[in-house]
Every structure is written in structure tokens, then in C-alpha cells.
């Protein structure tokens, strides 16, 4: 990221004490006591201490830390879901901690949309009405908000689900609704609080990818909270590392990986030689289409052309992987009027277990462009890995 970017939010000397004698706790902090000592002496918890950072216009900033590091407190201080004890948060010329209740309301409506870890969708509202919520309370007229909500639902791939209720959707889809609700609002900053942490790994991976694409397309300033270093490295333009309520490092993913600020960061990142840490499960994509062993050549060809594939994996009823078919041989068989695909099956194809690291995976691509099949120990097809995904992962080691 370049330095010419404008600053969107300035956070200065932000602190938060949980307790009723906050002055005393801050005074002890200024005398050099640490969090544990302050807790012991006063019974108050120093949630955040002296936080300073800038959020740049259009960047995806990840705030990362373990549980108890204060990251959830920090994101909630930004829109004052939690009242900061001291410090400034400046956005668009306004200092958030000093706003009146009414001004705060306007500030939240204009500047902040939030996506929550457990989705926090309104169960009594349809998907469409959930997406409309932010606009509705701002008093935007019906037609306009319906239009905007539909657009944002489309952007997250939920077209056609407008009338469903949240409990009819899977976790991944629910979080898409959460994202659509935030996008429809068209606020200037997107706050994402462990937004993908409740999703299972495969879906999570997809959502990260989609968020990156969406974010690059829309240039929406995004602050993303996570406890997962891989996630932080994967999506962040910059990363802020938080420990015990203090910032330990701010930097790009490469900087964090290659020049850790202290032992704490180093412990996080050590061994993140991604080619050894990242597994096939992590980079695999769901299979777009498979052929069945009892399909005819023409059926298979149609499936392939519909999904723009050159080769297709063949599975049986239990999704056990039988082999791979090439378009060329299928074409010949179809022209020759054959009905079965059995003899066309190529059984010598690259395959790998889901827990194999990328280091093993990478050589399998030499000279071939067939996606590598990921199979479980019952030979069932779980997904495929394409070369691009592996390269992308390896590139993130950041050999400067």
C-alpha cells in the first residue's frame, strides 16, 4: 500500500478500563504497572491501553490477537458500542468519544456497518428485510431501500433467497446476509468482528476469498478482527497485532512474517513456512462438476461445457473417486456412438490426502494443468486444488 492514501480514521491514545474507578487504574498504568498488577491492586481490568493507529481510506486492516487481547473491545470502541475511557477516534472531522447521543446515532448510520461473529441476524425478518435494516432505520423510502438491499444480496450471491428466513440458511449463507446487511447500508467503514470464525474451514476460505474480491472491487475501508493468523495473513493489507490491550506491531503481512517486532509476534509466525503449514484442505476448492460412472459420453460432455472444464472427475454413488475423463477422448467416443465411459477412464491421475502440506502438493503440478484431486481415506472426492491457489499461498510467504 502506498503512503499517498488518505487517512480515514485516526485513533489516538485510546484506552479502556473496565471498572468504576478508571482514573486510578490509568494513573497506575502511567506509573508503569502492567495489566495484571493493576487488576490485583484495583480490581479493574485494563482492556486497552494507549492505542494509536491510522486506518487508511480503502484498505483492509486486520486487527489480530488472541482471546483477551482486547480486539473485540477495540472494534467496539470505534463505534462506541463500548465507551472508551480516554482517547480520540477521529473520523470525518468528528471525534467519536465526544459526540452527543444524537450525533453518535448519525455517525453510526453514516460511517459504520458491522458484521458479527455469530451473524446477529434478526430471526423475525426475512433475508431481504435483514439487508434493509440499516436503510430502514435511516428512513430511506421503501423502493430505494428494497433496490439497494437486493443489489447487495446479489453481490454476496444470495439472489433468489430474499424471502427466506435466516434459520432456513446455512451458516455461510447467514453470514452472507450479515455482509449484505452491512453493504446495503453504504456506510464508509465496514467493521467485521471475527466475521468468519464461526464458519467451517472450507466455507471460511471461500468467504475470505470473496471478501478480498469484494473489497478490492468496492474499495470499502474495512477493519477485520480475527484470532487466526492465517486469516490475517490471507486477507489483510495491513495487520495490527494486539496483546494484553496493547499494540505490538503494525505492518503488512510480509513485514509481520519476516520482521516480527518481538518474541510474541515471532512465536505467532514461527514455522509459518506456508508451504509446510498450509494443507491441501485449506487451498482446495469445491468441485464444480463431477461425472457419474453410469453417465453417457454426451451427458458428460455437456456437463463439462456447462462448467468450462477440460477434464472431469468421475465418481460413483458414494462419491468415491473412480478416475478422470479428458474432453478429447470423450469427444471421439461420442462421435463413434459409444454409450459407456468406462473404458475411457484414466485412473492414473494426481491425488492427495486433505492433510498433506503444500510442499508435497506443489511438485504434482509439474508439466500438468489437471487440478489435483483431494480424497479422504475412503477414496471420496472432497475437492480439487488448482495450481493458482497453491502459488498464491506460497507467494504470501513474502520473499521480499
Amino acid at each position, binding site marked *: 500500500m502506498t503512503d499517498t492514501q488518505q487517512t480515514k480514521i485516526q485513533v489516538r491514545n485510546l484506552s479502556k478500563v473496565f471498572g468504576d474507578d478508571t482514573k486510578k487504574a490509568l494513573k497506575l498504568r502511567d506509573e508503569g504497572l502492567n495489566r495484571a498488577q493493576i487488576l490485583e491492586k484495583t480490581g479493574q481490568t485494563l482492556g486497552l491501553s494507549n492505542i494509536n493507529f491510522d486506518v487508511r481510506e480503502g484498505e483492509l486492516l486486520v486487527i489480530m490477537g488472541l482471546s483477551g487481547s482486547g480486539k473485540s473491545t477495540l472494534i467496539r470502541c470505534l463505534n462506541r458500542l463500548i465507551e472508551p475511557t480516554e482517547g480520540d477516534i477521529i473520523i470525518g472531522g468528528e471525534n467519536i468519544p465526544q459526540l452527543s447521543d444524537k450525533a453518535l446515532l448519525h455517525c453510526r448510520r453514516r460511517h459504520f456497518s458491522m458484521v458479527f461473529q455469530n451473524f*446477529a441476524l434478526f430471526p423475525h425478518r426475512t433475508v431481504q428485510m435483514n439487508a434493509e435494516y*440499516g436503510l430502514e432505520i435511516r428512513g430511506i423510502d421503501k423502493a430505494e431501500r428494497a433496490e439497494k438491499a437486493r443489489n447487495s444480496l446479489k453481490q454476496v450471491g444470495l439472489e433468489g433467497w430474499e424471502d427466506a428466513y435466516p434459520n432456513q440458511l446455512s451458516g455461510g449463507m447467514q453470514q452472507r446476509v450479515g455482509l449484505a446487511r452491512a453493504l446495503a447500508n453504504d456506510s464508509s467503514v465496514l467493521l467485521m468482528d471475527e466475521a468468519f470464525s464461526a464458519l467451517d474451514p472450507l466455507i471460511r476460505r471461500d468467504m475470505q476469498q470473496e471478501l478480498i474480491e469484494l473489497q478490492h472491487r468496492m474499495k470499502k475501508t474495512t477493519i477485520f478482527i480475527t484470532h487466526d493468523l492465517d486469516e490475517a495473513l490471507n486477507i489483510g493489507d495491513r495487520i495490527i497485532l494486539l496483546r494484553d490491550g496493547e499494540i505490538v506491531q503494525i505492518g503488512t503481512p510480509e513485514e509481520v512474517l519476516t520482521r516480527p517486532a518481538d518474541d510474541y509476534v515471532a512465536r505467532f509466525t514461527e514455522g509459518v513456512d506456508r508451504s509446510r503449514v498450509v494443507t491441501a484442505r485449506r487451498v482446495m476448492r469445491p468441485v464444480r462438476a463431477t461425472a457419474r460412472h453410469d453417465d453417457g459420453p454426451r451427458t458428460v460432455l455437456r456437463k463439462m461445457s456447462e462448467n468450462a472444464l477440460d477434464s472431469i472427475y468421475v465418481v460413483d454413488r458414494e462419491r468415491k473417486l473412480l478416475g478422470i475423463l479428458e474432453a478429447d477422448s470423450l469427444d471421439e467416443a461420442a462421435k463413434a456412438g459409444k454409450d459407456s465411459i468406462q473404458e475411457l477412464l484414466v485412473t492414473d491421475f494426481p491425488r492427495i490426502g486433505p492433510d498433506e502440506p503444500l510442499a508435497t502438493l506443489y511438485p504434482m503440478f509439474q508439466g500438468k494443468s489437471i487440478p489435483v484431486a483431494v480424497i479422504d481415506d475412503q477414496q471420496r472426492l472432497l475437492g480439487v486444488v488448482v495450481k493458482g491457489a497453491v502459488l498464491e499461498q506460497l507467494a504470501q510467504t513474502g520473499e521480499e
Partner: protein
Amino acid sequence: MDFDIPRIPLGDWIEGGLDFLTTEFSGVTRAISRGTQTGINLLNDGLMWLPEWALIAVVVLLCWKVSGRRLAIGALIGLALIWNLGLWNPMIQTLTLVVIATLVAIVIALPLGILAAVSDRFYKVIMPILDFMQTMPAFVYLIPAIPFFGIGSVSGIFATVIFSMPPAIRFTTLGIRQVPKDLIEAADAYGSTRSQKLIKVQLPLSLPTLMGGINQTIMLALSMVVIAAMIGANGLGSEVWRAIQRLRPGEGFEAGIAVVIMAMLLDRLTQSLSGGKKTK
């Protein structure tokens, strides 16, 4: 006891207070009395104007729509029995009192319940009052009702409202306080005002609990309306009361069974109403 501790004249104080209220606010109580009596008469006349079979048909259809065939058949048999026993008019009178008492109770309870959910201080004030209202023997409410509103149905409604209101308040508060914290956070994060949060998020989500409270209120109202026969409230209660005075157990049980039938119908109906909302 040898100690000469004067007895605390608690009863005198309360009487003094009640006297003060009745004399100073007689204009208000008379207006309330007149208004309530008009309401009772209107509803009662309206229900009586319908022929018995028509009202039974309406109730049976309603039961069928809301709940199902079993309740509809039950309603048909039960109401037909009441008609057959010649208890139709007292039943309508009782129903009228229950409906009006419940409506008044809900109108008072909803805002109080919401207030208690939003304000911790008010919560702390009102909860002991509700405990007091619920543990005080129900008969006691009948006594001050008479100087306020005289003998008759209005007094009965007054006592019934006081007796049946607490669960509606409690359940409203409970329902609102039970709304998950992350949904409140979401509503706040998007910049909802207090009333927007209440109307768009808290109330709809507390509806099932709230309906449970209303169900309780109806049940309590029914039981109290029967007791209120002692101070001249008309209806099935006065049938029971007369049977007691004349030592006629058969008639007493007939009226009692009619009350049971009403209770079951009202209970099942309101329960299916709230259940229906939840599954949507």
C-alpha cells in the same frame, strides 16, 4: 404479655388512606365506573344479541382455524353443554368481564413491562410491588373496590385487573430482557434509536413470551371474575355463590364445570395463537 407496646394501627392507616382516596377522587372513580359500565354493557349486549348457535359457530370456526379439529370439537361440545344447562347468559357475562379486565390489564401492563425492561431502577421498584400484588390474598382486593366503585361488576373488574396484571408485566419484561445481546448490539451498531430498537427488534422477538404472559393474565382474570361474585359481579360466579347460599351442590358444580370449559377454551386458544406466531 406484660409489655405495654401499643398495637400499630396499620389497618387504621390503610383505611384512612382509602377514605382519603375515595372522597378526594370520587369524581375520577365515578367517571371510571361509568365508562367501564358502559363498556361492559356494550360488549355484553353485543354478545347477547348474537343467537347462541351463531356464537358457538364463530368460536368453533375460530378454534378450527387457530388450532385444529380437536379443539373445535371440544369447543362445540363444551359450549353446547353450557347452553343446554341454561348457563348461557351467566357465561356471556363472565366472558365480558374477563375480556374487559384482560384488555385493561394489558393496556396498563405493556408500558410498565417495557419500562421495567429498559430501566433497571424501575425494575427494582416494580418487582416487589408485583410480588405484593400476587401474594396478597385475592379476596382482599374486593374490599377497597366497593368504596371506590360500589357493589357490582365494575368493582369486580377493578379487583380482577389488579390481580391479573402482574404476569403480563413480568412476561413483557422477561421477553424483552431475553432478546439476545448480539441482536441488541446489531441494532445499536446500525444506529437505531431507542424506540426503533424497541419496535423493530425487542418487541417482535419477545412476542412469544409476551403472549405467554397474556395467557396467564386471562387465566387469572377468569378465576378472579368468579370470586368477584362476592361483591356483586354477575356471571357464573354468582351462580356458584347462590348455590353455596342455598346449599345446592348440583347447581354449584354445573356452574363450576362451565367455568372449567371456559378456562380450557381460553387457554388453548391463546396458546395456539402465540405458538402459531413462533413457528413463522
